[in-house]
């Protein structure tokens, strides 16, 4: 299967045709084309290609155009520039919710979407197909004795007790740059007052700020970081399987679960293919091979029931609150005050 896609055309667009910035534009042509499906996505090629190819195996007549952009650019493309795509796939739950709330999403309902748990869909417009826990990454060098803090309180105590050991060795998202980091920080703040205390301690210990999970994991492996807070577990698990050198800790007081969502755009030209793809993603749990290949954990209601500390970020108008410009300004000011200690 993988070799069959040698024929796919990978081209970096000169970004003149589109005003928003794209990272990659991939086309998976069908051998005998009967339909087309255009996807605007924030998921990178490594993660998503197995899914696209499996979909194409089920629907051999569909040519897929897969455009990758950052979450903010994807939002800009749809909301401001009216870019024509059939589907939008994004990990930015807040932006996806805003697009649906502002009327850009088409309503769709099928047996597959009805089978999703209530918290995994909104308005029958936004459908979650992965549940990815947000974790603490602990380098194997951080706690040679083996006692790894599993709650935010325990982490705060460890940082207080051994400030010199961790000074400059902690990494987290720069929420001013990363929309995803901002979402996680706001959800932390909403869930517990402890997260502000943790943020202040981290600020005092000269925490280093990153744009993306990948960079944090790189520095963990290189030994520059001992702790990385709020890293997407799915990325970490993929890297750990390759190289190791760190542990993935799901916090026991609470762990946010990020939901990757898909929506059909209102102006979608290829409704049939879009519906097929939404159904395919909603049934991702039935394809363990794809879950393994993509590293994207499928929706699993039972796992969340077993562990009450796992909290899926709730889809719905609550997510719009932190997109409010005054709210964002206030939050960022407080965040900066805590993390930069100025």
């Amino acid at each position, binding site marked *: 299967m993988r070799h069959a896609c040698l024929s796919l055309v990978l081209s970096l667009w000169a970004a003149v045709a589109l005003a928003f910035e794209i990272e990659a534009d991939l086309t998976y042509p069908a051998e005998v084309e009967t339909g087309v499906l255009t996807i605007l996505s924030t998921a990178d090629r490594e993660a998503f290609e197995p899914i696209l190819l499996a979909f194409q195996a089920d629907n051999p007549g569909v040519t897929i155009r897969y455009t990758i952009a950052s979450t903010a650019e994807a939002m800009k493309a749809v909301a401001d520039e009216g870019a024509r795509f059939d589907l939008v796939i994004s990990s930015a739950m807040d932006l996806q919710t805003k697009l*649906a*709330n*502002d*009327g850009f999403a088409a309503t769709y309902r099928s047996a597959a979407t009805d089978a999703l748990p209530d918290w995994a869909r*909104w*308005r*029958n417009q936004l459908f979650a197909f992965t549940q990815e826990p947000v974790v603490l990454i602990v380098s194997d060098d951080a706690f040679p004795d083996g006692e790894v803090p599993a709650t935010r309180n325990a982490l705060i105590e460890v940082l207080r007790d051994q400030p010199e050991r961790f000074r400059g060795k902690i990494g987290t998202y720069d929420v001013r740059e990363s929309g995803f980091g901002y979402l996680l920080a706001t959800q932390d703040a*909403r869930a517990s007052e402890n997260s502000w205390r943790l943020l202040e301690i981290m600020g005092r210990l000269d925490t280093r700020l990153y744009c993306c999970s990948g960079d944090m994991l790189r520095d963990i492996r290189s030994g520059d970081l001992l702790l990385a807070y709020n890293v997407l577990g799915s990325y970490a698990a993929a890297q750990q399987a390759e190289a190791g050198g760190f542990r993935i800790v799901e916090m026991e007081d609470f762990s946010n679960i990020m939901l990757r969502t898909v929506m059909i755009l209102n102006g979608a030209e290829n409704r049939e293919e879009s519906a097929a793809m939404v159904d395919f993603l909603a049934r991702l749990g039935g394809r363990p091979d794809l879950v393994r290949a993509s590293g994207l954990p499928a929706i699993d209601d039972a796992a969340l029931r077993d562990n009450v500390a796992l909290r899926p970020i*709730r889809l*719905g*108008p*609550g997510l*719009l*609150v*932190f997109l*409010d*410009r*005054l*709210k964002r300004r*206030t939050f960022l000011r407080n965040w900066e005050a805590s993390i930069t200690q100025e």
Partner: protein
Amino acid sequence: MSAGAAAKGSIRRRLFLQLAAIAALLSVLLFLVMRAVAASAAEDTQDGILAASATSIADALRSEEGSITLDLPYSALSMLGTINEDRVFYRVVVNGETLTGYDDLPPPEDAPTLSRNTFSTFEYRGDEVRMVSVARVVSTGGAPSNVQISVAQTRLGLQAISQRISAIATAAGIGFFVVATALSLWAAQSALSPLERMTASVTRRGPGDLRPFETETPAELVPFVAALNSFIARLRASLQRSEDLIAEAAHRVRTPLATVRAKAEVTHRKLNKPEHRQTMREMIRAIDESSRSAGQLLDHAMVTFRSDSLSEEVVDLSEMVQDTCDRLSPAAGLKDVSVLARVPDLPVTMKGDWVLLQSALQNIVDNAIKYSPEDTTVEVALSAGETIRLAVTDAGRGFGGADVEALKGRFARGRNVDDIVGSGLGLTIADEVARAHGGRLEIAANRNGGGACVTLVFPLS
């Protein structure tokens, strides 16, 4: 029974249709009221949550460094997402300038005041939305600023609720209609049941029963029953009058006839010429017939009268048969007809009216003698088995195949009686007496050769 009265419309149908129409009207009313009440309750719920959301936003407003700022509470919007999945929009306007939220959310036509929130419904971004607007005054650097907070939500959840309510209200309305219609069918039936009972009791009555109705009837039927009873009383009086007239006439005729007959007998004896004596004999016979007829008319009137209030004495039929035969034997002897009484050894008794029963028997035997040729026997046989049978057999000409039931009618006579005078009342009287006693009159041919057999049949008492 419907003879003479053509049905025009039906009270039951009219009653049922009217009640069903009322039920239909009430069902529709029930549907509308249920839907309106439930819809307004659902709308009030949405309005309440919208107002709570807007108020929580208003409470988060504060003044900072001479300008107004807002820390939008998470709950302000998330609470709107808890009951349904409707889209949410908000806008905060300070002194006419948008502070935050959706810039294009239209301001309310009816501006809110500090003491009054306003609600409005309109189209926004492709959907109908419900919007609440709340006014606040916030002091900034000594100068008050007017702030208007609007929170709007689409109404798909409300529409879903209202569809569900409509379905329930429809089901309730249909259910109510079906039950009410069934009940109105029953009510129409039950309202008319006294009328049916009345009809049945009129139908059940015998032809001679002219007693007034005394059964209990609903108030609405009392005038009708009173009118019916008054009609019956008049009919009864009229019948009574004609019976009285007949009796009176018969009585007045019989006495002079007896005188005339006595005189004719005397004259007959005095006459010598055979042709004159023959004429006189015929005259006497005619007088006898007239006298008999007058007697029968009297009997008939008496039967009619006495049947109404039948006495219940114990009658020894054996004695009565013997007595009657003895009394009629002399007259039969004149025609050379013998009368033979056959009674069982044990006495046969029944409850009834001696006078009527004797009158009946006498009329039958009288008839038998009248139609019997010379040198024959009239047999009166009494027997008691399952019923009491009193059979009178003659050797006369019989009824010549005439309709025997018709012979029981008043003044009806057989077809072969032209040469014999008669009133035609004899069998009528016998029939009426038999029926007054719960029995019947059987008319048949004599099984032993020619002649007739007329039998009075009574139940065993």
